[in-house]
């Protein structure tokens, strides 16, 4: 770091899934130069699974993440499907996996919204942190808190019925699934379904009304123009399980479309930067400087053409109308987008539970064996890539993963930089307001570190202001 530059470090005290800290670099004029969110990724995993038999991988990879193991489970299963030559799963296997995935979306999005986001929304960003958490929500909005808990629980029940257990189940196996949905399991799940869809609808309204009412305050918060990326079906339909990569610019021009999943590295590259363990993926055509992009709920809504369920599609149209059909680049709009996805998952679960294919007995297919396979899926936090190579003896020889938090790394840096620029320029102390907004902006992306470290509704932070020689000018600590 050059003489005269200052560094502010914001560090979550508790290290859980992905420990992160924020460094804000000031230039000599005390202007914000750059912001960096450091995330310690569990990179050792890619080496750890060397030599393991390929059929173990979809279960083994769930150890990667305690937050969305189902996404890794299904993504790995898709990659291994390709290796065992299962190019077309049976209807039962495909729909069971879809059901599992939508159950995961329901539980993950419900957790994020009710535990992590609703306190900010309902109490305001500057409310006392002692109150601005899920405990505060339970006290002030007990009915909302109850719905959040039950929506999440319903998602977990779907996972249990499809994967055998709420966490770390075994449902997806190479070429298919190990069970169908019994009529008893289906009837159990049907009991509460109507209520689940109704609550999902209500929460979309809540997120929409809040966003539109506070648009003036929310629009600039951690916002910036960016490209957006997600998988979509060939006809442009939103699909979180199956599809091909599409990316659009901040203005909505198509950058890439129908990219072949198995050769994703032809369109995407990964850059390593000296200050972070994390890789920085970028769209090759745009180069390492401009090729970064956003993933997750906002990107998916920006990139897709339509939802195939009526309520979510109506909600998407309202969302798109705000920006006149162009992509929305407002960071805080992630929450509204996320709730539209929650509604879509509830509706899809409704369709699937009424589909007799789920009671089929044709569970697994095989085909011609290959030595390499890629799986791409939309995880709750964004596009997820699993890429494996195997040897003739069925052992893994290479693994490359791109997780959603990695793709959103650069966007989160931009969001923090934007907040810092709005609050810090020329000021030598870290205000409570800035601290709150750094937290809120990172949280909009629902990164693993955010939801792990503030599962109780609050992100523990240490903020330090350093001068050029490393002496502490100012320090703020916020415990969880």
């Amino acid at each position, binding site marked *: 770091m050059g003489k005269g530059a200052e560094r502010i470090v914001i560090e979550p005290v508790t290290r859980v899934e992905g420990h992160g800290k924020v460094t804000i670099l000031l230039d000599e004029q005390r202007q914000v130069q750059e912001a960096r969110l450091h995330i310690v990724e569990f990179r050792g995993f890619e080496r750890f699974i060397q030599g393991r*038999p390929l*059929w173990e991988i979809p279960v083994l990879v769930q*150890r990667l993440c305690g937050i969305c193991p189902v996404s890794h489970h299904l993504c790995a299963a898709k990659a291994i499907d390709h290796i065992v030559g299962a190019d077309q799963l049976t209807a039962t296997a495909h729909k069971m996996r879809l059901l599992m995935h939508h159950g995961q979306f329901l539980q993950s999005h419900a957790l994020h919204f009710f535990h992590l986001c609703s306190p900010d929304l309902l109490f305001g960003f500057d409310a006392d942190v002692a109150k601005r958490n899920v405990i505060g929500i339970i006290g002030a909005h007990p009915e909302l808190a109850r719905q959040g808990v039950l929506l999440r629980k319903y998602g977990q029940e779907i996972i249990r019925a499809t994967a*055998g257990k709420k966490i770390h189940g*075994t449902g997806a*196996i*190479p070429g298919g699934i*190990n069970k169908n949905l019994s009529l008893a399991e289906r009837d159990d799940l049907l009991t509460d379904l109507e209520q689940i869809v109704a609550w999902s609808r209500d929460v979309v309204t809540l997120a929409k009304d809040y966003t539109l009412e506070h648009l003036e305050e929310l629009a600039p918060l951690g916002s910036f123009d960016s490209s957006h990326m997600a998988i979509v079906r060939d006809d442009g339909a939103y699909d979180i399980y199956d599809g091909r990569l599409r990316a659009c610019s901040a203005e909505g021009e198509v950058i890439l479309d129908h990219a072949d999943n198995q050769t994703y590295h032809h369109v995407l590259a990964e850059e390593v930067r000296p200050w972070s363990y994390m890789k920085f993926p970028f769209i090759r055509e745009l180069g390492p400087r401009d090729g970064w992009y956003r993933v997750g709920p906002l990107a998916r809504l920006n990139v897709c053409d339509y939802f195939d369920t009526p309520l979510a599609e109506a909600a998407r149209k309202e969302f798109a109308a705000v920006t006149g059909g162009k992509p929305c680049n407002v960071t805080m709009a992630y929450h509204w987008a996320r709730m539209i996805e929650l509604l879509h998952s509830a509706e899809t679960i409704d369709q699937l539970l009424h589909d007799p294919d789920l009671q089929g007995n044709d569970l697994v297919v095989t085909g011609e064996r290959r030595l390499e396979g890629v799986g791409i899926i939309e995880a709750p936090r964004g596009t997820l890539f699993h890429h494996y190579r195997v040897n003739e*003896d069925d052992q893994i020889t290479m693994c490359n993963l791109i997780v959603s938090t990695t793709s959103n790394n650069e966007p989160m840096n931009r969001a923090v930089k934007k907040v810092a620029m709005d609050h810090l320029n020329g000021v030598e102390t870290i205000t409570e307001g800035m601290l709150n907004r750094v937290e809120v902006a990172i949280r909009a992306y629902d990164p693993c570190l955010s939801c792990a470290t503030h599962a109780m509704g609050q992100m523990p932070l240490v903020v330090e202001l350093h001068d050029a020689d490393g002496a502490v000018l100012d320090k703020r600590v916020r415990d969880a």
Partner: protein
Amino acid sequence: MEQTLEFTIDGLPVTAAPGETIMAAADAAGIYIPRLCAMKGLSPFGACRLCTVLVDGRSQSACTQPAAAGMVVENDTEQLQGFRKNLIDMLFVEGNHFCMACEKSGNCELQALAYRFGILAPKYQYQFPQREIDASHPDVLLDRNRCILCARCVRASQELDGKEIAGFVGRGGEKHLAASSGCGFVGTDVAADDAALAACPVGALLRKRVGFSTPIGQRKYDHQPIGCEKELRPEKSSTTSDVQKGVAS
């Protein structure tokens, strides 16, 4: 009619045919003695010591010791169960047993014993040994990370399959199972449906591509603790209290 001998296990009268082991007699009487290396149909081996009982006050392995008239056997005592619990615990830390990612989970005797004995996390330190996998055979895989050296596969291969697929090499901590060919299992006549594979109590000697094809809920120990199938009155055992009847993970 053949003569029978009478003795007691934990005070209960038990009968045995001459030459019958304490374990066989206990099984017939509906009394469970924990075990790992013993398996019905295979010659006794006496390696794991999990079946250790007190015979007239002296410790003996029930799987090898023939019953004798009038002997007083202690099995379900606090001391013996504690001793067994420690042995199970040590087997876990000695190898690399990550149940969560193991395809034998729910069907594994070691895991099932841990559940029966209420072990949720080992109290000893994990050793994290470096162990090799033999994946050379097209249909058979040996993951030594989970091998507990019980020799059930070795005996089953010899006694049931009429083959000689594997044996032990090395000593102490270095002791490991090796295929009886210089180039791994691919050089042996092992076959996927050999009794040797079915005999493995853990996820070490496996048929390839089976993986997780049995859903959770349909696995052997999903609904009742190991040993219950042998027990006349499982509720009487000190190791099957309600809290320990957890479903395998």
